[in-house]
C-alpha cells in the first residue's frame, strides 16, 4: 500500500480539472501548469516500488490480518490468491517509462506555454489528462481499468488535435474518433471474453487461471480474446492498418502536441504489448503475429515517409515505422529481446519528441510545413539547425546517441534468436530512415531559399531551445550509459519470459 503510487494519476487529473476552470487567467495557468508538470517527474523518481490496491485490499495470501480465522471454504480455494481490488503495480520499468513520459509532457507543456500567444487552460487540461491516462495504462494491472483509460487517452488525443487550429484538423479528429469507436468496443469485447472465461479482470489472476489449468488455455474464446486485444493494441499504438490515421493525427497537431501524442502511442503500445505477452506468450502464434505486424509497420511506415512532402507527415510516418522496432523486440520473446524493445521504446519517445519540437521551430518561423516551399533555413539559425540534425542522427542510430545502443541490442537479440533476417531488415530500414531524414533536412535547411518564402521576424522562445538541449543531453547520457535504462527494464523483461 503505497500512497504515492496513485498520485501519479491523481495529480495530473486534478490539475487538469482545475486548469479547465481557470479560463482566462493566463499567468495563473502558466504557473500551475509548470509546477504540476515539474512535480510529476519528482514523484516518479521518489516513489518506492510496490503495489497499490484501489477500493479493496491485498490478496488474502499476502494479507495475514484479514486472512486470519477465515473458513476453509475460502482458504482452500483459488480465491485465496485473487486480487479483490484495482491493482496498480509500480516497478523499476514502470518508473523509468513514467519518468520519461512525464518529462516529455513537461517539455511539451513548457514549450506550448511559451510558443502560443495566449496559454490556454483547456489545452493544458487535455495534455495533463492524456498524461494521466497513459500513466494509468502503464501502471494498471486491471484490464478493465486499462480500457477506461484507453478511452480517456483517445479522447484527450482527439482534443489535442481539435485544439491545434491547423487546417483540416476537425476532419482528422473525426476520423480518429470514429475508428476509435470501432476499436474500443471490440477491445472491450475481448476483455469481456476473458472475463467470461476466467471470471476476473485482474491480469495477474487471469494469468494464474490460465497457467494453473483452471481454464482451457487453447479454448476458442481465449484465442478470440487474444485477437480482439491485438486489434485494440493496433489502434492504441497506430500500427497498420491504423498507420495512416496515426501519422495524420501527428501532422494535424501542433509540434509540442505531436511530441506528446507520439509518446502516448509509444507507451500505450509498450503497456498493452507487455500485457498481451504476459497473458498469451504460451501461444506460439502470438510472437509470430507481433513480428509480422511490426515488420509491416516498419516497411509501410518508412516507405510511406519517403514519398511524403509535408515534413510533419514525414516525421509522423517515421514515428510509426520506428514503432516496428519496439514490436520486433517484444515479438522475439527472449529476455534480451524484450529489454531491447523496451529500451528502444524509451529512446524513441525521446527522439521523436526531440524531432517534432525541433522541426516545430521551422513551422513557428515560416507558418508552413510543405517541404516544397521551404529552404535556406540554415542561415536563419545555424545552431538550431545543428540541433535538428543531431535529432535525426539520433533517430537513425549514429553511435554516441541512444538509439544506436538499442538498435544494436535489437540486432544482437534477433541474431541470438536465430532470425538474422530481422537484423538485416532493421539495418536496411535504419539507413533508409536516415536517408529520409536527410532529404527533409536538405530541402528545409540546406538548399537555397525559395523567393516566395517569408520568414517571420518572431524570435524562437528560449524554452524551445532549452527543451531541445535537454533532450539532446538525455540522448547522449542514455547513449553513453545504456545500463541506466536497461537495468531498470530487465526485471520486467525477465519476468515475461
Amino acid at each position, binding site marked *: 500500500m503505497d500512497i504515492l503510487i496513485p498520485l501519479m494519476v491523481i495529480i495530473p487529473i486534478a490539475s487538469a480539472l482545475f486548469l479547465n476552470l481557470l479560463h482566462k487567467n493566463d499567468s495563473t495557468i502558466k504557473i500551475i501548469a509548470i509546477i504540476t508538470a515539474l512535480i510529476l517527474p519528482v514523484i516518479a523518481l521518489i516513489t518506492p516500488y510496490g503495489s497499490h490496491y484501489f477500493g479493496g485490499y491485498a490478496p488474502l495470501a499476502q494479507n495475514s490480518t484479514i486472512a486470519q480465522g477465515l473458513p476453509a471454504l475460502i482458504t482452500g480455494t483459488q480465491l485465496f490468491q485473487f486480487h479483490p481490488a484495482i491493482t496498480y503495480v509500480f516497478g523499476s520499468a514502470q518508473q523509468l517509462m513514467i519518468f520519461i513520459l512525464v518529462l516529455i509532457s513537461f517539455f511539451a507543456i513548457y514549450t506550448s506555454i511559451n510558443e502560443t500567444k495566449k496559454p490556454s487552460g483547456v489545452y493544458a487540461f487535455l495534455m495533463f489528462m492524456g498524461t494521466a491516462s497513459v500513466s494509468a495504462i502503464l501502471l494498471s494491472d486491471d484490464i*478493465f481499468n486499462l480500457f*477506461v483509460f484507453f*478511452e480517456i487517452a483517445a*479522447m484527450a488525443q*482527439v482534443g489535442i488535435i*481539435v485544439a491545434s487550429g491547423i*487546417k*483540416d484538423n*476537425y*476532419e482528422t*479528429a*473525426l*476520423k480518429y*474518433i*470514429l475508428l*476509435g*469507436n*470501432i476499436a*474500443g*468496443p*471490440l477491445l*472491450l*469485447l475481448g*476483455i*469481456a471474453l476473458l*472475463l*467470461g472465461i476466467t*471470471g476476473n*479482470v485482474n491480469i495477474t489472476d487471469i494469468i494464474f487461471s490460465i497457467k494453473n489449468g483452471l481454464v482451457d488455455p487453447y479454448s476458442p474464446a481465449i484465442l478470440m480474446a487474444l485477437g480482439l486485444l491485438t486489434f485494440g493494441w493496433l489502434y492504441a499504438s497506430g500500427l497498420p492498418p491504423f498507420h495512416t490515421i496515426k501519422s495524420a493525427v501527428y501532422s494535424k497537431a501542433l509540434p509540442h502536441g505531436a511530441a506528446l501524442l507520439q509518446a502516448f502511442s509509444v507507451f500505450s503500445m509498450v503497456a498493452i504489448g507487455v500485457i498481451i505477452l504476459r497473458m498469451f506468450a504460451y501461444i506460439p502464434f502470438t510472437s509470430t503475429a507481433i513480428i509480422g505486424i511490426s515488420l509491416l509497420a516498419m516497411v509501410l511506415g518508412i516507405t510511406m515517409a519517403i514519398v*511524403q*512532402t*509535408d515534413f510533419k507527415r514525414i516525421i509522423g510516418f517515421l514515428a510509426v515505422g520506428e514503432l516496428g522496432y519496439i514490436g520486433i523486440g517484444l515479438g522475439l520473446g527472449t529476455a534480451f529481446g524484450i529489454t531491447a524493445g523496451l529500451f528502444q521504446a524509451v529512446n524513441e519517445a525521446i527522439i521523436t519528441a526531440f524531432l517534432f519540437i525541433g522541426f516545430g521551430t521551422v513551422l513557428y518561423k515560416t507558418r*508552413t*510545413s*510543405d517541404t516544397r516551399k521551404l529552404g535556406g533555413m540554415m542561415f536563419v539559425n545555424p545552431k538550431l539547425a545543428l540541433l535538428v540534425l543531431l535529432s535525426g542522427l539520433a533517430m537513425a542510430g549514429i553511435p554516441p546517441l541512444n538509439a544506436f545502443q538499442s538498435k544494436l541490442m535489437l540486432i544482437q537479440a534477433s541474431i541470438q534468436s536465430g532470425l538474422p533476417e530481422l537484423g538485416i531488415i532493421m539495418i536496411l530500414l535504419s539507413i533508409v530512415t536516415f536517408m529520409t531524414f536527410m532529404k527533409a533536412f536538405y530541402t528545409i535547411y540546406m538548399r537555397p531559399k525559395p523567393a516566395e518564402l517569408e520568414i517571420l521576424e518572431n524570435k524562437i522562445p528560449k524554452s524551445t531551445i532549452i527543451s531541445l538541449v535537454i533532450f539532446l543531453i538525455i540522448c547522449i547520457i542514455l547513449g553513453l550509459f545504456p545500463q541506466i535504462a536497461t537495468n531498470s527494464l530487465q526485471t520486467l523483461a525477465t519476468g515475461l519470459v
Partner: protein
Amino acid sequence: MIIDSQLMSFFTAGSLIVIGIFAALFLDNLIKKIIGLAFLADGVNLFIITMGYKAGGIVYILLPNMTISNFAQNASYPLPFALVLTNIVIGASTLAVMLGLIIVLNKKHGSISASKILGDKGEKIE
C-alpha cells in the same frame, strides 16, 4: 423453451455488433455511421450483461430474509454489470463529441457525407 434465452441473447448482441460494423462501413451518411457505432457499443454491452446472467437465478442484491449460501448459489455475477455501467457512460460521452465534430464540419462544408468531407485531401497544403 426450445432455445436457451441466454444463447438467443448472445445472438442478439452479435447481430447488433454486425449491424453496427455494417453501418459504419457501408453507409455514407455520417449520422448513420454514428448510429451504427452506437449499436455496436450497445451490442458489446448486451454481450457482457448476458455473460453475467444465470438461468433461473436471482438479482445480485442481498435482501434481509435471504441466507448467504442461497444467495451465493443463485445470484447472477455482478462484476460484468459494473463494467457495463461505466461503458454506457463512456459511450454516451464519445457520442456527444462525435456529433459535436459533425456539427462543426457541417458548418464548414455544408455536407454530412463521409465521402465528401472525409475524403482524401491529398498533398495540397497551404
